[in-house]
């Protein structure tokens, strides 16, 4: 406790005692002096309150009794008399003594205190506070409760936030809150400081019912609260806010105790209900139902259609205000999202399924090549779309063969270099944002960059004098018709491999990069989308037309005056002090509708640098269901597909890299 505060309290108490004395002297002359009685009462009250706060328990105790007595006198419940007056005077002197020493030391005058206290009590006060003290001790045993809180519509006017009540309830244990509307008007008639909400809270707690109703202590008459015990123990074990039997309930009505109880007891009656048995079974066996993959594709297709239709419904419900429609639309949205997630996880397959083939390949090949190779696989429980896995197998096999053949040296050579004669190839997979990364690394010799350079010059792929960075040199291995193995072996083909690998991976919207370091090994890193049919994109608009850019291709967005863009003669613009080439998409797409004053430039990583794409407007993030383009558009590489927007229009999905390449090579050929 702060010393300054204690000093303040003591000074105040002494002032009050002086006031008390004055009032008491008045009373001595006229026992019926109402003002004096009130003054005594208020002084006692204030001393009592403050003394309690500052630890002066003895002061608090004695003033408490006197306060009650004077309250009764003030309220004409009893008469003032000489005895009371004498004892009050005595108390006054006693208070002065009590306040002279720190509270802890006031033990010394205990006997005097006890005597006086007894005297005060003998004045015959019925102390209501004292009788309340015996509280029932309820055995702590956890139980599940149903609590329905329906705040009166005026609760907000009293300064109470009903949400805090729910929070306070949920702090008591584990539970979920199921809000519902109560007499919700249409939005035009909505009054902001009127409450239209009710809450049903299912709570498992070891606290007593008293503790639960204690939450509502401030609002007893502002809320209709029903607390009913659903049963002993935790009935909410497998229930979460996201996964409960009432997830798609009608939010215009409370569920009611009976409905909740029957749903919960049904679920809990046999500890392992039907759904739980299924869950357990699936946990033990990953796949116990075989589904024709065509059927699965069909399902995915239908889900995609549903997502599109749902988006339209959401848009329609936004445009037509109807509380009922909003509820339906939101419900459909929730269900659709869950269905979509469900369906997509269904088509995800762990990489494990192809690892067996790799193990086999490694053991066969290492024998054939007379190498000792250990194959390790990490993160093979990483799941990825089955159609991606199908297309990934060949490139992976090829990369693996390459590592075994070119990467890992033979045991004698490894010994000479001081390495473990046994080489290691590691296949590793993990999630990275919305991507799955698959890495194949070896601890072999690494890629000899000088040899790549020579080869490339020999094959006429680069000029003898050209300056290439390490990265550019390494990337040459992906150029068609390139092979570095001095001896062409049966194993890793004849240099037709790496370019095909790259193409296969790009086909499934993935990218492959390679890092290598001499004598330490080579790592191929393949970055893949989780699924092929859903794309997180940035929706942009040029004129009246919407386009979608994959979010993965977006580095940063800038706002630039359209006039600035038009006035450049070499298609460069300065962004954050950096000169950046840009493409004015409205010109490239021959969109002639009126130009906005401000244009948006989206910076897209390209060839190790950045290229800006200028559009009119950025609408925002959009999760799109990708649809392939009809065969008339098959040659238009710059569009990887299309998607149907909520309002029914079609947006083309831009393949930023191919688009830039196409447009820049066009420019180049024009110049040449």
């Amino acid at each position, binding site marked *: 406790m*702060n010393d300054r*505060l204690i000093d*303040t*309290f003591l000074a*105040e*108490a002494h002032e009050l005692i002086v006031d008390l004395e004055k009032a008491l002297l008045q009373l001595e002359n006229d026992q019926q002096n109402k003002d004096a009685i009130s003054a005594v009462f*208020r002084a006692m*009250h*204030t001393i*009592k*309150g*403050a*003394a*309690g*706060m*500052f630890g002066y328990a003895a002061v*608090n105790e004695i003033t*408490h009794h006197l*306060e*009650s007595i004077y*309250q009764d006198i003030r309220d004409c419940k009893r008469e003032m008399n000489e005895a009371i007056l004498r004892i009050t005077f005595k108390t006054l002197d006693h208070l002065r003594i009590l306040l002279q020493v720190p509270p802890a030391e006031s033990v010394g005058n205990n006997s005097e205190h006890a005597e006086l206290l007894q005297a005060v009590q003998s004045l015959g006060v019925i102390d*209501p*506070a004292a009788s*309340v003290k015996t509280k029932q001790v309820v055995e702590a045993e956890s139980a599940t409760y149903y609590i329905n809180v329906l705040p009166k519509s005026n609760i*907000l*006017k*009293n*300064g*109470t*936030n009903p949400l*805090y009540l729910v929070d*306070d309830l949920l702090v008591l244990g584990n539970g979920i809150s199921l809000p519902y509307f109560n007499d919700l008007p249409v939005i035009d008639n909505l009054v902001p*400081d009127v409450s239209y909400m009710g809450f049903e809270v299912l709570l498992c707690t070891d606290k007593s019912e008293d503790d639960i109703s204690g939450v509502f*202590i*401030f609002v007893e*008459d502002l809320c209709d609260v029903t607390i009913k015990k659903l049963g002993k123990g935790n009935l909410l074990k497998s229930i979460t806010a996201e996964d409960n039997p009432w997830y798609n309930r009608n939010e215009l009505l409370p569920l009611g105790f009976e409905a909740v109880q029957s749903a919960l007891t049904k679920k809990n009656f046999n500890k392992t209900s039907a759904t739980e048995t299924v869950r357990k079974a699936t946990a033990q066996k990953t796949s116990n139902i075989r589904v024709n993959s065509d059927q699965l594709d069909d399902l995915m297709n239908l889900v995609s259609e549903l997502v599109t239709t749902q988006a339209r419904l959401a848009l329609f419900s936004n445009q037509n205000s109807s509380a009922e429609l909003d509820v339906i639309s939101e419900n459909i949205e929730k269900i659709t999202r869950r269905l979509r997630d469900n369906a997509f996880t269904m088509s995800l397959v762990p990489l494990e399924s192809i690892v067996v083939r790799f193990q086999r390949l490694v053991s066969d090949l290492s024998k054939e090549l007379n190498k000792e190779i250990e194959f390790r696989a990490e993160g093979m429980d990483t799941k990825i779309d089955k159609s991606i896995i199908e297309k990934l197998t060949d490139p992976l096999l090829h990369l693996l063969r390459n590592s075994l053949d070119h990467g890992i040296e033979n045991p004698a050579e490894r010994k000479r270099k001081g390495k473990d004669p046994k080489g290691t190839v590691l296949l590793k997979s993990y999630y990275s944002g919305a991507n799955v990364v698959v890495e194949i690394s070896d601890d072999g010799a690494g890629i000899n960059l000088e040899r790549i350079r020579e080869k490339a010059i020999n094959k006429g792929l680069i000029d003898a004098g050209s300056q290439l960075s390490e990265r550019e040199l390494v990337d040459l291995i992906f150029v068609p018709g390139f092979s570095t193995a001095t001896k062409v072996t049966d194993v890793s083909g004849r240099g037709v491999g790496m370019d095909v690998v790259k193409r296969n991976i790009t086909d499934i919207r993935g990218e492959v990069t390679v890092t290598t370091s001499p004598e330490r090994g080579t790592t191929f890193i393949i970055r893949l989308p989780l699924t092929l049919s859903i794309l997180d994109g940035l929706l942009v608009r040029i004129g009246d037309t919407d386009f979608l850019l994959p979010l993965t291709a977006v580095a940063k967005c800038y706002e630039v005056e359209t006039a600035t863009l038009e006035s450049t003669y070499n298609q460069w613009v300065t962004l954050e002090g950096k000169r950046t080439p840009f493409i004015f998409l409205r010109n490239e797409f021959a969109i002639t509708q009126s130009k906005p004053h401000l244009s948006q430039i989206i910076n897209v990583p390209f060839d190790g640098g950045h290229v800006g794409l200028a559009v009119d407007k950025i609408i925002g993030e959009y999760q799109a269901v990708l649809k392939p383009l009809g065969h008339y558009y098959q040659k238009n590489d710059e569009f990887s597909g299309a998607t149907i927007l909520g309002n029914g229009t079609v947006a083309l999905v831009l393949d930023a890299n191919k688009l830039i390449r196409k447009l820049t090579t066009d420019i180049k050929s024009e110049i040449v």
Partner: protein
Amino acid sequence: MSKTIVVIDDSESIRELVGLTLENAGHTVAKGVDGQDAMRLFDGREVNLVITDLNMPHMDGIGVIREVRKMQGYNTVPILVLTTESQTSKKEEAKAAGATGWIVKPFVADKLLAVVKKVIR
């Protein structure tokens, strides 16, 4: 987050104690020595909570509640009253006037902050 809290008590020590406790918890405190004096604090500033004593000269706590509930812009501010256990009837009266809740004296800092947290977040 810091909130602005109006504390009204005629006892300087209680006022300072409550003020200090709230300030240490990061809140901004405006103090009034009684109900009448406190009225000047409702001058358009943002007030997130009012804590008032009940027994005060000039204007008591009930008066404060009634006045604040009438004021445009402050009519839904939570109001906590400082009471003692002996004042059950006062508590009822305060509630009827529009008090949000109460803090029973004596209280320790933690309890004060817990009750404050109960009504503002």
